[in-house]
């Protein structure tokens, strides 16, 4: 009886997934092939949300928190904390957007390449799944107030440093790659 139940459940699950994917209007049901973003450099440089790091960092700074606790009324301090958490969530959403854009560019490049590396694709898939999981956990912890904002402040500092370093490293690659992409599309 176990086998019967397992197979029926498996068939129902797979059938459900298929029907969900077959419903018109999903991303998979578009009419064209993969489209490269208009400006590859924009996606590659990924500075859209990094650019806001100094402001986010300031908004989340421990000094600000201390100042609020010491000088503002409890009601004001509480509201300020709530707003700071909202900023932190926006920042996280921005990170998610940056990540998604970059991952999408990787997938498009793979789709349009005559050769694809299994290792690279597997690695990207794992990285994407890992990011989704950690993003959800972080978002949940932020929403429930379980994640001290100071930790996020530390993150913004790290990312800021990293962004500068990575942008320098990526500039050369993106210049070559974007040139080739344009060349390849124009061919």
């Amino acid at each position: 009886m176990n086998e019967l139940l397992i197979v029926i459940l498996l068939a129902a699950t797979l059938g459900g997934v298929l029907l969900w994917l077959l419903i018109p209007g999903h991303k998979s049901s578009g009419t064209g092939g993969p489209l490269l973003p208009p400006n590859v450099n924009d996606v590659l440089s990924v500075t859209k949300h990094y650019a806001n790091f100094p402001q986010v960092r300031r908004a989340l700074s421990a000094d600000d928190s201390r100042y609020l606790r010491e000088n503002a009324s409890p009601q004001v301090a509480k509201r300020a904390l709530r707003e700071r958490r909202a900023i932190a969530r926006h920042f996280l959403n921005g990170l998610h957007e940056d990540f998604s854009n970059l991952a999408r560019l990787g997938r498009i490049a793979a789709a349009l390449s005559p050769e694809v590396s299994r290792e690279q694709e597997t690695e990207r898939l794992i990285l994407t799944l890992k990011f989704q999981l950690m993003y959800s956990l972080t978002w949940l912890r932020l929403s429930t107030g379980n994640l001290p904002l100071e930790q996020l402040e530390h993150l913004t500092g790290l990312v800021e440093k990293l962004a500068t370093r990575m942008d320098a490293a990526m500039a050369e690659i993106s210049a070559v790659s974007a040139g080739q992409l344009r060349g390849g599309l124009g061919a």
Partner: protein
Amino acid sequence: MNYLEIVLSWLTLAFVTALCGFVFVKKLYRVLPFFSAYSFALLASTIGVWLVYKMFGFNSLAAYYTFWTSLLFNAAMRSLAIAELCRYKLRVYRGIWGLVWRLFVGISTVFFLHASFDTWGQPNRLAIYALTLDRDLDLASVAILASLLLIHRYYGLSLEPFQRTIAAGICLVCAVDVVGDTILKSLFTGYLFPFLGAASRTAFWFSLQSKFMQAEDIWSAFHLLCFMTAMGIWCYALRRPIPRQAEAPELLPAEVYRELSPAINLRLSTFNDRLVELLKP
């Protein structure tokens, strides 16, 4: 066969004939030769089995062998049609196709091996083999179609409405077959008899038997209805002119991917590293 089953059988034959008519008129065999072959195989096996029933009787040995052989034959043709559907669009994306065809072969092999192990040493061999193979091929088909759609979605490729409708019909046939085959196989191998109770030798069983036969009739009618729905879906997809296959996209030089992909992955992993640090207690 009761009156309802006879009516449904005739209707099924009419649907299969209509499908083959569409395939022939729309010249589908030029675009999807294996799916066209599957449609004609369905018609041939439906007529063949019906003729054998007429000539040798429903309970004859010839009917038994013809039915189970045609079941396997149809499953094999359907598998080829699915393989064709997978290749239809993805072959123009050479890199992705080179990557995923192994996945599809892997899924099929796993289910094929499972079927072989599952039927080893079972009584009623042909029926068990045919049912188990059919069921596992159906499961593999649904898994492959799901993977195909997920891959299209993941890489931002489009699946034309025509292909989507064909896939939906195949999905329906496979999902219903999986359930039907599993129930039948369980009956053949005796898994369900203990469930029905040791009552099979008592008067209670005889009173239950009619209910059981009634349930079997209902299932049979449901199965035929689903099969006809799938035919209807395929006929609906074929009502319009068959879309021409989209032109192959202009592929990029291989160096672009070789340089871009590791750089992107490196960048993505830094995002993850930051989140890991954030989540550390």
